[in-house]
C-alpha cells in the first residue's frame, strides 16, 4: 500500500490538523505566481506561521494575480492548521457567496465541516457536510464517507455509520481504514458478529508497513476486548494472540490474554502472560494491574504461599510507584514541569510536539513526559509552544528595529551630503528644456504636413544662404537703377530660385528624415525626462520619506512592546492550565494506585487468614 494515502487517512480521521486532500490537491500544483509557490513551499513543510506571513505580504503587495481566489482559501486553511479556527471560519463564511464556483464551495464546506467537528459540534458538522456535492475523485469520496461515518458515530448513530461505510467503494489504499472504521461502528451498534467478521478479516491480512501492522494490532486488540466483555473468552484469546509482542499494544494484549484465560477458569495459563508483564518493570496501567492479577491467580490455584509473596511484591511496587507519583506531583507544583515545557521551545513556528523532551535531572520525569504526551495536553501545549515562538520572534524584531533607525539615519545623512550635488547636476542637464525642443520639432513636422513650407526644413547653411540672398536683393533694390545693378538683382533672384528649387526638390526626403530622427529620439528623450522628473521628485520627497520611515518604525516598536506583555500573560495562563491538568491527571493516577494498594493489602490479609485457617484445621 502506498504511504501517501495512509497519511491522508490519518488526516481524515482528525489525528492531525494539516491541510487535507479535499482542500489542497495531492498532485503537484501548477504555480503561476512565484510568491504563491513560495507560500506552498512553507505550507508543505508545515511551517504555518511563515506561510501565513508570506501569503499576507504577497496579497498586500498584489503579487498573486493568478491565484487570488485560491489564496483566500489557502489562507483560511493555514489559519485552521495554525490553531486559529475563529478567523478561519470567518474567512470561509465570507467565501460562500452566490458567485463562488462549485469546486471552491465544496472545499469551503469541507473546511467548515472540519471546524465544527473539531469543536465537537457534530450535528452542525453533519449539516455542513451535506452541502458538499458528490465529488468525482474516488479518494475524496472515500475521505468524505469516512468523515460522514465518524460524525454519525459521534452522534451515536452507529448503524447508519456502518451502512455508510458498507456502501462506500474505497479508493486504492484506503480499504483497511474503511474496514476498521466499519468494524468499530458495527461493534458499537451492538452487532458483535458482523463487527467480528469485518475486523477478523483485517486482523488476518498481511501488512507490509509498520503503520498497517499497528492498525491490524489495534483491530485485534479491540475485538479481543469486546469479545471478552461479551463473555466469549475463548474467541477473545484468539484475537489477542494475534497482537504482536513487538508492537505498541503488547502490554494491553498480554493483560487481556490473561483475563481471557482466567475467565475460562484456566488460571495456570493466565499466569504466563501476566508474569511476562511483571518482567517489564513498567509503570503503565497494564503492568500495575498485572501486579494484582498474578497473586489473584495463585490464590485461585490454591497456592497461598506464592499469592502472599506476589501480594507483598505488589504492595512494594505500588509503594514505590506512589512515591514516584508524589515526587512528580511535587515537581509539578514546584515548577519542574514548566522547566520541561521550556525544553519544548524549539525556535520553529509552533506546531505539534513531535520529540519527547529529555529527562536529564528531572525527578519522576517519566510521569511528567507521559502526561505531556497525553491527548488532553496537546492543545494547551501547542498554544504554549506557539506563544513561546511568538515571544522569541517579537524579541528578535525588537533587537533589529534599532538597526532600522540607524539605516534610515545613514540614508538621511547620505541624502544631505549628496542632494546639493545632484540638484546642481540636474540643473545643468536641463532635461525639461531638451524635451521641450523635441516637442517643438515634433509640432513643426506635424505642421509641415499641412502648410508644406520647404524652407522650414532648410539646413542651417541653406538658411544662411537664403538670408544672404534676400539681403543682397534688398540692398540692390535700394540702389539707383543702373543696368549693372539690375543684372546683379536678376542674378540674385535667379540664385534664390535655384536655392529654393534645391530645397523643395528633396523636401519629402528631408521631412521623412526629420520624422525618423525625431522618432528615434522619442524614447531616450522621454526616458531622460522621466528620470529627471523621478530624481527631482525623489529629492523633494526624500525628507518626508525618512520621516515616514521613522514614524513607521516607532509605531511598530510600540506594537511590539504592547504585545510582548500580553503574550507573556497568555503564556503564563497556558502554563497554569497545563500545570492544573497535570496535577489532575497525576492525582487520578495516585488515587488509582492507592485503590490497587488497598485491594492488595485486603487480599494479602485474606490470604494470611486462609493460611491461618488451614493451619488451624490441620492437627
Amino acid at each position, binding site marked *: 500500500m502506498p504511504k501517501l494515502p495512509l497519511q491522508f487517512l490519518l488526516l481524515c480521521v482528525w489525528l492531525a490538523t494539516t491541510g487535507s486532500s479535499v482542500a489542497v490537491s495531492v498532485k503537484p500544483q501548477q504555480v503561476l505566481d512565484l510568491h504563491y509557490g513560495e507560500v506552498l513551499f512553507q505550507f508543505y513543510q508545515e511551517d504555518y506561521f511563515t506561510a501565513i506571513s508570506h501569503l499576507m505580504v504577497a496579497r498586500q503587495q498584489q503579487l498573486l494575480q493568478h491565484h487570488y481566489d485560491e489564496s483566500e482559501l489557502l489562507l483560511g486553511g493555514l489559519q485552521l492548521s495554525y490553531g486559529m479556527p475563529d478567523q478561519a471560519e470567518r474567512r470561509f463564511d465570507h467565501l460562500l457567496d452566490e458567485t463562488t464556483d462549485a469546486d471552491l464551495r465544496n472545499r469551503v464546506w469541507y473546511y467548515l465541516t472540519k471546524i465544527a467537528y473539531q469543536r465537537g459540534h457534530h450535528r452542525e458538522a453533519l449539516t455542513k457536510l451535506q452541502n458538499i456535492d458528490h465529488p468525482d475523485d474516488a479518494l475524496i469520496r472515500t475521505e468524505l464517507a469516512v468523515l460522514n461515518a465518524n460524525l454519525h458515530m459521534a452522534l451515536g448513530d452507529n448503524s447508519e455509520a456502518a451502512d455508510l461505510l458498507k456502501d462506500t467503494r474505497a479508493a486504492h489504499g484506503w480499504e483497511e481504514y474503511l474496514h476498521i472504521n466499519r468494524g468499530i461502528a458495527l461493534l458499537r451498534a451492538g452487532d458483535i458478529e458482523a463487527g467480528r467478521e469485518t475486523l477478523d478479516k483485517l486482523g488476518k491480512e498481511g501488512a507490509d508497513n509498520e503503520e498497517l501492522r499497528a492498525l491490524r494490532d489495534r483491530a485485534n486488540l479491540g475485538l479481543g476486548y469486546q469479545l471478552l466483555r461479551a463473555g466469549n473468552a475463548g474467541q477473545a484469546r484468539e484475537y489477542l494472540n494475534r497482537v504482536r509482542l513487538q508492537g505498541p499494544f503488547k502490554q494491553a494484549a498480554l493483560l487481556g490474554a490473561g483475563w481471557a484465560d482466567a475467565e475460562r477458569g484456566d488460571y495456570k495459563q493466565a499466569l504466563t502472560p501476566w508474569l511476562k508483564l511483571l518482567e517489564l518493570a513498567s509503570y503503565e496501567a497494564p503492568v500495575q494491574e498485572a501486579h494484582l492479577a498474578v497473586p489473584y491467580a495463585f490464590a485461585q490455584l490454591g497456592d497461598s504461599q506464592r499469592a502472599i509473596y506476589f501480594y507483598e511484591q505488589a504492595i512494594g511496587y505500588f509503594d514505590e510507584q506512589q512515591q514516584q507519583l508524589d515526587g512528580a506531583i511535587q515537581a509539578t507544583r514546584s515548577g519542574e514541569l514548566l522547566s520541561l515545557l521550556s525544553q519544548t521551545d524549539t525556535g520553529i513556528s509552533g506546531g505539534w510536539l513531535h520529540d519527547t523532551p529529555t529527562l536529564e535531572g528531572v525527578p519522576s520525569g517519566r510521569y511528567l513526559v507521559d502526561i505531556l504526551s497525553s491527548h488532553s495536553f496537546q492543545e494547551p501545549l501547542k498554544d504554549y509552544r506557539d506563544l513561546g515562538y*511568538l515571544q522569541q520572534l517579537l524579541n528578535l524584531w525588537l533587537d533589529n528595529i534599532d538597526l532600522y533607525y540607524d*539605516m534610515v539615519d545613514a540614508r538621511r545623512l547620505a541624502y544631505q551630503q549628496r542632494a546639493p550635488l545632484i540638484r546642481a547636476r540636474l540643473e545643468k542637464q536641463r532635461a525639461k528644456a531638451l524635451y521641450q525642443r523635441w516637442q517643438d520639432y515634433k509640432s513643426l513636422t506635424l505642421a509641415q504636413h499641412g502648410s508644406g513650407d520647404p524652407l522650414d526644413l532648410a539646413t542651417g547653411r541653406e538658411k544662411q544662404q537664403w538670408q544672404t540672398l534676400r539681403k543682397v536683393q534688398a540692398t540692390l533694390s535700394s540702389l539707383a537703377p543702373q543696368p549693372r545693378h539690375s543684372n546683379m538683382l536678376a542674378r540674385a533672384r535667379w540664385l534664390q530660385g535655384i536655392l529654393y528649387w534645391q530645397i523643395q526638390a528633396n523636401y519629402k526626403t528631408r521631412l521623412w528624415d526629420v520624422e525618423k530622427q525625431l522618432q528615434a529620439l522619442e524614447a531616450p528623450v522621454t526616458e531622460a525626462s522621466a528620470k529627471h522628473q523621478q530624481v527631482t521628485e525623489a529629492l523633494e520627497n526624500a525628507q518626508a520619506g525618512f520621516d515616514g520611515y521613522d514614524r513607521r518604525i516607532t509605531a511598530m516598536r510600540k506594537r511590539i512592546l504592547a504585545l510582548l506583555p500580553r503574550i507573556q500573560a497568555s503564556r503564563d495562563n497556558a502554563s497554569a492550565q497545563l500545570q492544573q491538568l497535570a496535577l489532575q491527571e497525576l492525582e487520578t493516577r495516585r488515587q488509582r494506585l492507592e485503590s490497587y494498594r488497598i485491594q492488595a493489602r485486603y487480599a494479602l490479609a485474606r490470604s494470611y487468614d486462609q493460611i491461618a485457617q488451614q493451619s488451624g484445621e490441620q492437627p
Partner: protein
Amino acid sequence: MKPLFRGILAGLLVWPWLLLAEPEATVETGVNEDVQNLKQQVLELNRDLFMLEEELLFPSNTQVSVFVSMDVGEFFQLDSVQVKIDGKEVADYLYTRRELDALVRGGVQRIHIGNLRSGEHELVAFFTGKGPQGRDYKRGATTRIQKGLGPKYVELKIVDQTRNFQPEFDIKEW
C-alpha cells in the same frame, strides 16, 4: 475474591475503546480565544515588519530574487543549488528531504534576495544531485539578466524531460 476480579475486568475493558474511538474534540476556552487573537495581531505586525525590512534592505529599484522550482523530479534528485551573480557566490543551499518533497509538490523556494544595479548581469546556477540510474550529477545553467527599475524575479527550473529521460535546467526571467 470474585468481585475484585469483576471490578478490575470491567475497568480494563473500557480503556481499549479509547484506542479505537475518534480523538476528542478541541475544548474551546477563553485562553484559546485569547491565543487566537494574539496570533492574528502578531501575524499582522510580522507582515508590516517584513515589508518594512524589505523596503529598507532591498528597495524595489535594486531588488533581485532568485527562486528554485522543480516538477516531478523523477530523473534528478536534487542535493544542492549554488547561485553566482557576476561571478560572486550569493547562495549555496543544501536541501533536506522535507524541502525536496515540498518542491516536488509544487512549492517554490526563494533561495536568494539581494540588490543589483540597473543593467545587465550574469547569473550562473549549479545543480548537484543524483541523475538517472542514481549517478552523481552536476549541471550548470547560465543566463544574462537585465535589471530594470522594478524588482527582478528569476526562476531556476528543474524539469524532467521525458523525451530523453534526462533532467533539464532552465532559467526564466519574470
